[in-house]
């Protein structure tokens, strides 16, 4: 008998092709939107975290003000030369301590110019960042101390200004400083935050402070630990030293932050988590709208089909047989729509993850939620109005137009 009911249901679905198609469409759109959005959101989060993790945990970033989204480093008290000197003298198990002061500046060569990141630092910067020179040489101690007008170009700047032309030994103008190119850097690509790390010009810190910034501030200190050194101990040492140097008493919070890329990434993950939630909310709305669509079509169709229910009752169908047919019909449509929706949603997410080069993160939970939710709507709104109609006296059901 169940097989007969299934056949009746399939027959009814095929007879009402347009109505069935619209119901199906509602389910498919709702399910696929939720699955695609959440999968893409999750992929983005994983991508950011992976990128961050690649940068390693043996490099510590020290900045004024604490790390974290919404925290500013600009308003906190900046570091100075003495901080760097003290760190170099007192910290154990470190490879390099690199000071860094930066702002955006215009760089000009001949007719070419672009806005880039001007970084004042010294020879330790490349070491701390585990960066390689493509050509030329690093800063000399003498150049750093006396503030010579020399610079090292990132790949992007070098290509933009010089194209294929030789850049070593040429003079460029950075902000209002005319300086000689002594080296170029290997490309490093995008950071996890999507910024171009090759769009930089390095110049000696002293030169930067005197001739570009006009102060003696240091905005960042990058500390790289020796391989095998305990970075959490190095981190604690840095914190202790800086608290002492900045006169922070026992109970007060740090007014600076020390973190490795993993920790910064974790703080950032809160932001991408919010993004995922936002995407989920949008997807949830589309699921809801899809659900309302299904609901409407089901309600309208049952009203339309009340006469059909009356006919079936008149020729001897039991109420339960008519209901079972409508239930099987709704379940069949919902399952079919749900399956297509899951396939479409995952396919869409797969295509986007290939296009945006983010990992494809399959989340069984959201697939189940989307599937069950739309199936439930289909069944509930297919079943209950039908039950109301099937409970009428046959003649009342027949009289409905």
């Amino acid at each position, binding site marked *: 008998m169940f097989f007969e009911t299934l056949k009746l249901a399939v027959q009814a679905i095929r007879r009402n092709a347009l109505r069935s198609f619209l119901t199906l469409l509602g389910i498919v759109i709702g399910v696929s939107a939720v699955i695609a959005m959440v999968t893409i959101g999750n992929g983005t989060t994983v991508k950011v975290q992976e990128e961050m993790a690649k940068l390693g945990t043996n490099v510590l970033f020290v900045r004024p003000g604490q790390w974290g989204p919404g925290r500013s480093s600009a308003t906190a008290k900046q570091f100075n030369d003495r901080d760097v000197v003290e760190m170099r003298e007192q910290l154990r198990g470190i490879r390099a301590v690199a000071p860094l002061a930066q702002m955006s500046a215009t760089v000009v060569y001949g007719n070419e110019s672009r806005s880039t990141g001007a970084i004042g630092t010294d020879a330790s910067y490349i070491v701390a960042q585990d960066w390689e020179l493509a050509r030329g040489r690093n800063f000399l101690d003498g150049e750093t101390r006396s503030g010579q007008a020399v610079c090292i170009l990132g790949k992007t700047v070098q290509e933009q200004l010089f194209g294929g032309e030789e850049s070593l030994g040429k003079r460029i103008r950075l902000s209002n400083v005319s300086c000689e190119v002594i080296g170029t850097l290997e490309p490093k690509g995008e950071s996890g935050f999507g910024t171009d790390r090759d769009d930089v010009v390095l110049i000696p810190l002293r030169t930067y402070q005197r001739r570009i910034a006009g102060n003696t501030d240091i905005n960042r200190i990058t500390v790289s630990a020796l391989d095998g050194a305990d970075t959490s101990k190095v981190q604690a040492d840095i914190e202790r030293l800086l608290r002492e140097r900045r006169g922070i008493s026992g109970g007060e919070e740090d007014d600076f932050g020390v973190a490795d890329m993993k920790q910064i990434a974790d703080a950032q993950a809160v932001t991408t988590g919010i993004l995922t939630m936002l995407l989920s909310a949008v997807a949830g709305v589309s699921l809801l709208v899809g659900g309302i669509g299904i609901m409407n079509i089901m309600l309208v169709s049952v009203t339309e089909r009340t006469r059909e229910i009356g006919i079936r009752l008149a020729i001897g169908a*039991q109420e339960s047989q008519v209901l079972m047919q409508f239930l099987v019909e709704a379940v069949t449509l919902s399952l079919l729509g749900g399956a297509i929706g899951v396939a479409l949603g995952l396919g869409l997410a797969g295509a986007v993850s290939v296009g945006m080069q983010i990992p494809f993160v399959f989340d069984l939970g959201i697939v189940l939620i989307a599937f069950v939710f739309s199936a439930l709507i289909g069944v509930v709104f297919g079943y209950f109005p039908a039950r109301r109609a099937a409970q009428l006296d046959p*003649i009342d059901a027949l009289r409905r137009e």
Partner: protein
Amino acid sequence: MSDEETFDASAPNVIDLRGVSKTYGRGEAEVRALDRIDLTIRRGEFTAVMGPSGSGKSTAMNIIGCLDQPTAGSYRFNGVEVGRLDRKQRALLRRHYIGFVFQGFNLLARTSAVENVELPLIYRGLRQSERRPLALKALERVGLAGRAGHTPSELSGGQQQRVAIARAIVTDPAVLLADEPTGNLDTRTSEEIMDLLVDLNTSKGITVLMVTHEPEMAGYARRVVEFLDGRIASDSAVLEAA
């Protein structure tokens, strides 16, 4: 009452209404569609029920067909008190003993003639292989052998009504109830439908009860019952007996 259980076929009266009333609405708005009617139909009769619209003839027909329930009175079908049956049992009664033909045909749209005729058999639990020959035979009986695959929209009104009659007789019912079966048809087609009903009555012994407001159609019946204002105004059987 199970599917297999049968009614007392020896009861001479297939249909026996005693003091049956039907009212709609309550209080001031109460409408009395049927007012304490008594009606007895014997096995094998061909009865026409006549009367102006609103006289209660269709209401009586719906109660007899167990599509509707009386507000008061007793209705015995083949000796069984229908008022004591629940919804399920009334559905079984319709399934096994009653065939319906409606003025508006009431066929399932976009569904082929043979599938429409098969429908009552599905609910009887017959398999496709058993249903198809019976349905085709019923279609042949009403002269539509060549139209089994046509949907209602591809058939004329007369042909649709023939499909409906085939659907009604495919289960070999004891009683065929026809509510204005020719109401939507032209005279010639109406006559064909009436010939078919008479033939089913005489050759298969099906008890036929037909509502109509056309005297020509009532002329095919051997007994005519006239309704007026919810009561039976005249009954040719009673007149003959008197």
